């Protein structure tokens, strides 16, 4: 199972990297979200996918899945959600002000 997950994470990383290297700003932001998805799945996978109960004490089981990575992922999800929403609004604002979403044209010259 871990191997399948690793392949899925690898695909997410590859697609994310490809999108980040494109010219359109929206594709770049989508690339960063895919990269974050990949990283979160990686965190889940690397902590082990051994079958066990949900980490709820009321379930009365003998073994549970590791609760720590789930807490880490939850933290990381909200952080990347905040950053992504800021990034989208910034892209919108930049589109209004600069009139382009092409990164080649956002290079900037020295005379500004």
């Amino acid at each position, binding site marked *: 199972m871990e191997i399948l997950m690793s392949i899925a994470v690898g695909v997410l990383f590859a697609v994310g990297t490809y999108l980040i290297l494109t010219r359109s700003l929206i594709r770049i932001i989508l690339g*960063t979200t895919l990269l974050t998805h990949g990283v979160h799945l990686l965190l889940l996978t690397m902590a082990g996918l051994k079958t066990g109960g949900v980490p709820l004490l009321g379930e009365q089981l003998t073994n549970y899945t590791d609760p720590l990575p789930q807490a880490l992922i939850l933290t990381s999800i909200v952080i990347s959600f905040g950053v992504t929403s800021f990034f989208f609004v910034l892209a919108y604002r930049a589109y209004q002000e600069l009139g382009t979403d092409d990164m080649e044209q956002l290079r900037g010259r020295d005379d500004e």
Partner: protein
Amino acid sequence: MSNLVVLPMLIPLLTGIIIIFFYRTPSIQRIIAGAGALLNIAVSAYLVQRVYNEGILTLNFGGWMPPFGISFVADMFSALLVLTTSLVSTACLFYAFKSIGEEKERHHFYVFFQFVVVGVVGSFLTGDIFNLFVCFEVMLIASYGMIVLGGTKLQLRESLKYILVNVVSSALFVGAVAYLYAIVGTLNFAHISQRVAEVGQPGILTVSSLVFLVIFSVKAGLFLFFWLPGSYKAPPAVVTALFGALLTKVGIYAIIRIYTIIFYHDQAFTHTIIGWMAAATIVLGALGAVAYRDVPRILIYNIVIAVGFIMIGLVVANQQALEGAIFYLIHDMIVKALLFLLGGMMITVAGTPRLAEMGGIIKRYPALGWMFFIAAMALVGVPPLSGFVGKLLIVQGGFSGGWYWLTAIGLASSLLILYSMMKIFMNGFWGEEKYAAEDAEPVSLKGMLAPAACLLTISILMGVGAEWVYPYISQAGEVLLNPQLYIDAVLKE
């Protein structure tokens, strides 16, 4: 155990939250922010003294013993950096009162400011790798706000790039934590270090350490500084001063921390790589500082040179070199903030960042001119000033440790720093009076010179009073040399 350890982070956090409610009245915001900043200096100074007398202080949140809870650890290295952070940020804050303008103050400038300080102090004090990630994010998200506040075209364009680079490196940070957690199964620095020592750092841990090196190098501007010159040019001078003094230094701190506490078993391999990166950083930074002819860019490339130079101390990793790195790191935080504040005043006065269009400023503003001169000398490392002691220690350590080529590059960079600084001084301050605006009225620098003068005084005192500062530095170096001291203090077994 004492709650004192968390106070330097808690005070700016509470100050920032209170300021949110007064967004309509900048005068109240200033009073609260100023009071909080001064209080924080007092608390951090007390923390340094407590650590000096009692050794490493730890605080386990919620009473959970490490490694199960999050712990804050104040050893001398962290405590000194926290004190420096509060000094530098206070100077920038008082400079901002005069320079930033009401428009930005009404749009939560001081809130972002406080939260950057929260993130920086939290990163210095935390003893947990995932908490380090969270503190990094607190610092970065607030810095996104600061860099784009004002919304000029240049700021919008450059903050897009800044955010993209940091989002990618933060994603890699989470990935690196995932790998490390899979190998060692814990998140607490001391406990990770213990487990790494048990297995003797096999190849997979070295790889993991290199992933961390890449991430922190992006944050610190060590070799991977491609994003830095553009981004730091965009915001107002006081924001660049804060960023140049604090943000890259958090990356440096993280590199030094993980390579002295956790991954110190395969130094022949890892430290050689860091050595090459440091050398390349110094050379590229020096080229940039020599090539450009506008004030912000020259100063920005000097940040890059200093990052490489501090890393020499880590690479050599003997007692003198590590002490030198700590001393130089503290000196550099103060002097870089000072130079950016002075550079900001130069640009305000001349009306342009370009050296070709300014000249003769010293005739109307002698205090500014001579302060810049002394600060530049401190940066180069001329004896009575603070840059000298750190450079001397690193160079001595480098030669006695056998890293001749690397130390030579570091020494040679001083000459180019001197050249770049004198380029600013001679073109900007000497010569006939030239101002970008015709018939420029003398601009009042009242209230802006005072914070810069305070930083300059601290820098001079650090150089002249090196004998008094040294015991603190030496105590900080001791922990970096003996990770066992840190582990014992945290795990208390």
